[in-house]
């Protein structure tokens, strides 16, 4: 126990720490400029000087480790004089342009000078001049104002791990610059911006548009982009979002954000938002009223249900909608429409993978904390890049790597290029075999566990074939690990034999006693599953085919639930194609764009008798709908999201949405018109019902959620799953002999078809890029920036080529974000018979340089 005295107050410390930290614990604030709690100690600014008894000189509180018996004074005349002197020196060069500077009002230098002075500077020399740089699309650099505290650089290098900026020059000429000295070309997380104590780094998004003290209100909510669920603070003025910022000490992201979270919010204020309901009349979508649209929808749905049966109706739910929306959606489909045909795009990855893994290893197997990844000593990343799909989870991997963890990557993970210990690239689409042979080797080296017969049996049946890659080193890393995290992306799930890779991952998790995390590129994929937006599962993970569960819900819901399992996502589309499905109800999803073979999907949707869409934009799907409802977006409604670690978090309403309605409310109105009663008056009412019927959310209230740390099962009883059909059938590997294959890219700056409505993200990444490895580009005689025609058997379009040194040969990567140029429109699919996820591998592609393409382009 260390006891120190600060300003006459006795403080007991359990562990050694700096005087600054000890003072902070005791509630004593010592001024700092270079120190930041999120960053490593620097000791550069000297503002935190304190007097320590029996030490002849003033000491830096940030670098001085508290020793037993120290007597410290943090404010005195001498200390104030020193601080005033330091500030006077900083003000030699710092311009006094506060009336013009965005930071005024929340500027740490301004506050310090206000407290310690000086009121007048004695220096008469000319100030250093560095012209403000407006060359970046997002950041404005005002290096006149820089006090060289290096917080931004430490944030970028040591926390974000992007290392995109550094201090340039020497002495009073030093300043922060990105490598190019103009555009940042970085990950655009903006974390440098949030630690800058002065107005040296500012955001262009809201430059000169408001003053910090003019904010009407601040609302704590959860980010709408990915499955991590970062806490954000939305600052509102005149009922419009001025900015979205993280806050240190708030949420699991603790002050960090990624580009999408920080800069992607503008879609809420977009002019293109749907403002009124639309109904198709004479082949055209025309403005309508709420009552007309609701009546029309209810009437048509009832007609179809009565004439063709409930199973002629299907619904597609949304992992972007809240738990409450999704709960009401599946209840509406099951009770009002009378069908279990409910699924979502989560089928393309997260939901399929989770169902399969839980069946093998038990419910909750993927519910691991992100903080656990930070503490792992070995991390296996496979099937996706966590730094792009779930950037804040990616930071946990980078932090672990910095702390000495071994990071093994199978396939491509660009954001971990500088952090990985080992990268193994199997031959194209042969990951499953590589994982299987790795599992055989690991199982051989380990004692059998004999805890789960299905998994044990599956492992013993492995053929032991290999993908022709040496797995020795990989095996060694995994066997040496004591605390292992496996991070699985959706790429491996999107295979016709995806369950094989999933089994191998499950086996590795089981044999290595590892923790497993699934990447999730939508904010509420987990919640969607929990709410029962699946063809085979009721809320709480209860199988729909089990009579007792169905019975329980039927009692709660006053009605009958269909006994049979419904159709999965792609089966619904196929049903629409062959006429078995007559009506489709889509909530917050864009199946005409987000599904493989999307032109066929679009045709299938066009052939429906009734297509109802609830969305915030007129998406590709809404364009061909019969009825379109404008729903409230994120920040316009209350509700809950359940993140990938199964943390239940509260969304709060930040801005009003006068002309739109919450998704659950639209469903409720339609349901009542169809004769099935719903009585909710708020999202909280819906959660109250969820807490009654779902064993995983039992007793949960908004009050408890807003207090934080609600991880499920919350007072709940997890349900053990059972696997019925063993996978890992050792089919002969397919030969992939084509020269070049097209695969889906998950970019950092975009997400689904939502981010395209965000001007800032479009500035960072304005158009789709076809990424190719340098070897293959050379072989084809192509250069970075070339305009190429990319074509497959499903179609083709023009796209700009980007040569990426990280990539190998044989594959080109293209994302599915931009209008008319989504990669999924070029791909066919084959369903995985077990997971029902669409396998999109093996899509042969041709790329050809456009004749008129100008050589080379400068993105910056």
């Amino acid at each position, binding site marked *: 126990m260390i006891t120190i005295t600060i300003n006459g107050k006795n403080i007991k410390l359990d562990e050694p720490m700096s005087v600054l930290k000890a003072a902070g614990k005791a509630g004593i604030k010592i001024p700092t400029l270079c120190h930041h709690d999120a960053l490593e100690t620097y000791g550069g600014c000297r503002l935190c000087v304190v007097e320590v008894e029996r030490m002849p000189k003033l000491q830096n509180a940030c670098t001085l480790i508290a020793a037993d018996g120290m007597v410290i004074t943090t404010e005195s005349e001498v200390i104030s004089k020193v601080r005033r002197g330091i500030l006077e020196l900083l003000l030699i060069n710092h311009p006094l342009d506060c009336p013009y500077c965005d930071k005024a009002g929340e500027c740490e230098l301004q506050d310090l000078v206000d407290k310690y002075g000086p009121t007048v500077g004695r220096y008469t020399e000319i100030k250093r001049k560095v012209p403000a740089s407006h060359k970046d699309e997002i950041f404005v650099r005002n290096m006149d104002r820089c006090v060289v505290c290096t917080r931004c650089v430490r944030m970028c290098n040591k926390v974000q791990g992007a290392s*995109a900026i550094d201090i340039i020059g020497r002495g009073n000429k030093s300043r922060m610059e990105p490598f190019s000295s103009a555009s940042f070309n970085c990950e655009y997380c903006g974390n440098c911006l949030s630690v800058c104590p002065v107005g040296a780094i500012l955001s262009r998004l809201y430059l000169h548009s408001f003053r910090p003290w003019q904010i009407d209100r601040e609302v704590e909510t959860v980010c709408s982009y990915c499955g991590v669920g970062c806490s954000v603070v939305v600052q509102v003025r005149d009922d419009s979002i001025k900015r979205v910022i993280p806050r240190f000490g708030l949420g699991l992201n603790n002050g960090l954000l990624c580009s999408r979270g920080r800069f992607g919010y503008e879609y809420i204020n977009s002019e293109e938002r749907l403002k009124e309901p639309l109904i198709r009349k004479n082949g055209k979508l025309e403005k309508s009223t709420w009552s007309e649209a609701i009546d029309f929808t209810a009437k048509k749905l009832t007609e179809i249900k009565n004439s063709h049966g409930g199973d002629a109706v299907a619904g597609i739910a949304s992992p972007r909608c809240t738990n409450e929306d999704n709960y009401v959606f599946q209840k509406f489909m099951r009770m009002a429409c009378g069908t279990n045909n409910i699924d979502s795009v989560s089928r393309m990855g997260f939901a399929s993978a989770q169902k399969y893994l839980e069946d093998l290893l038990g419910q909750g197997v993927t519910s691991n904390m992100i903080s656990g990844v930070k503490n792992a000593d070995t991390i296996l990343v496979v099937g996706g890049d966590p730094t792009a799909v779930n950037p804040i989870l990616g930071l946990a991997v980078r932090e672990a790597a910095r702390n000495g963890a071994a990071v093994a990557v199978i396939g491509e993970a660009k954001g971990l290029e500088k952090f990985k210990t080992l990268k193994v690239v199997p031959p194209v689409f042969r990951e499953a075999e590589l994982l299987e042979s790795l599992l055989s080797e690991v199982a051989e080296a380990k004692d059998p566990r004999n805890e789960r017969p299905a998994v044990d049996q599956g492992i013993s049946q492995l053929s032991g074939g290999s993908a022709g890659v040496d797995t020795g080193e990989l095996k060694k890393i995994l066997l040496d690990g004591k605390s292992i995290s496996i991070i699985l992306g959706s790429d491996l799930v999107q295979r016709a034999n995806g369950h094989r890779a999933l089994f191998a991952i499950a086996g590795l998790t089981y044999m290595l006693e590892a923790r497993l995390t699934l990447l999730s590129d939508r904010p509420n994929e987990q919640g969607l599953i929990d709410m029962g937006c699946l063809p085979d599962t009721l809320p709480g993970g209860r199988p729909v085919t089990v009579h007792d569960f169905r019975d329980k819900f039927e009692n709660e819901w006053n009605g009958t639930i269909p006994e049979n399992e419904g159709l999965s996502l792609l089966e619904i589309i196929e049903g629409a194609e062959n006429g078995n499905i007559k009506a489709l109800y889509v909530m917050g999803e864009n199946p005409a764009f987000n599904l493989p073979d999307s032109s066929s999907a679009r045709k299938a949707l066009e052939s429906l008798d009734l297509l109802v869409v609830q969305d915030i934009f007129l998406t590709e799907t809404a364009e061909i709908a019969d009825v379109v409802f404008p729903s409230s977006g994120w920040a316009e409604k209350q509700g809950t999201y359940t993140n990938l670690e199964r943390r239940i978090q509260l969304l709060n309403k930040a801005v009003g949405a006068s002309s739109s309605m919450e998704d659950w409310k639209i469903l409720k109105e339609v349901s009542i018109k169809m004769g099935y009663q719903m009585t909710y008056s708020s999202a909280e009412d819906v959660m109250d019902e969820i807490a009654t019927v779902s064993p995983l959310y039992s007793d949960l209230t908004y009050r408890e959620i807003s207090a934080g740390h609600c991880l499920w099962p919350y007072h709940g009883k997890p349900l053990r799953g059972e696997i019925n059909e063993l996978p890992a059938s050792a089919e002969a590997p397919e030969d992939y002999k084509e020269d070049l294959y097209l695969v889906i890219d998950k970019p950092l700056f975009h997400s689904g078809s939502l981010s395209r409505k965000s001007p800032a993200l479009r500035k960072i990444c304005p158009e789709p890029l076809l990424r190719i490895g340098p070897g293959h580009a050379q072989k084809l005689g192509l250069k970075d920036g070339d305009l190429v025609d990319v074509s497959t058997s499903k179609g083709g379009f023009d796209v700009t080529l980007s040569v990426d040194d990280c990539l190998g040969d044989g594959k080109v990567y293209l994302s599915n974000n931009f209008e008319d140029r989504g990669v999924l429109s070029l791909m066919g699919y084959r369903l995985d018979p077990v997971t029902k996820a669409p396998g999109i591998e093996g899509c042969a592609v041709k790329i050809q340089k456009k004749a008129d393409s100008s050589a080379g382009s400068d993105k910056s």
Partner: protein
Amino acid sequence: MFNETVLKEIDGIRAKYPDARSALLPSLYVAQREFGWLSPEAMTCVAKTLNLPEAMVRGTASFYAMFRHNPVGRNVIQLCTNVSCMILGSDRLLDLLKSRFDLEPGETTKDGRFSLVIMECIGACGTAPAMLVNTDFHDNLTEQNLEEIMGKYK
């Protein structure tokens, strides 16, 4: 990009240190020798070879005065004009360079043969005035032998 020999040289440098950052300064010297100056491309080469962030390479290179950030001639003259050299006539040498070679401090001759940098004391006060041409040291300079010396550098 660097050729094979240079890559090998940098690998050799890298092997001497436990940490790639330590190899940065000597590798920058190699890059400067190869490219004549540290262009953004040269710094990118160093960053890629050592697997270090480009921004850090530039930050380090910009701190030190001995790294050049603009193209220079084939031969770089570093002439001292500190007290001893000044007293013993370095300004006459400067005049000569200007009249004879049209070379001003901080500039390069039109044929790209020489660049001139004024530098602070190079520790040759006893034999002043003195200068470095590339890495060669020359002292006891006069207007006559300066021309002779410069004739050796093409």
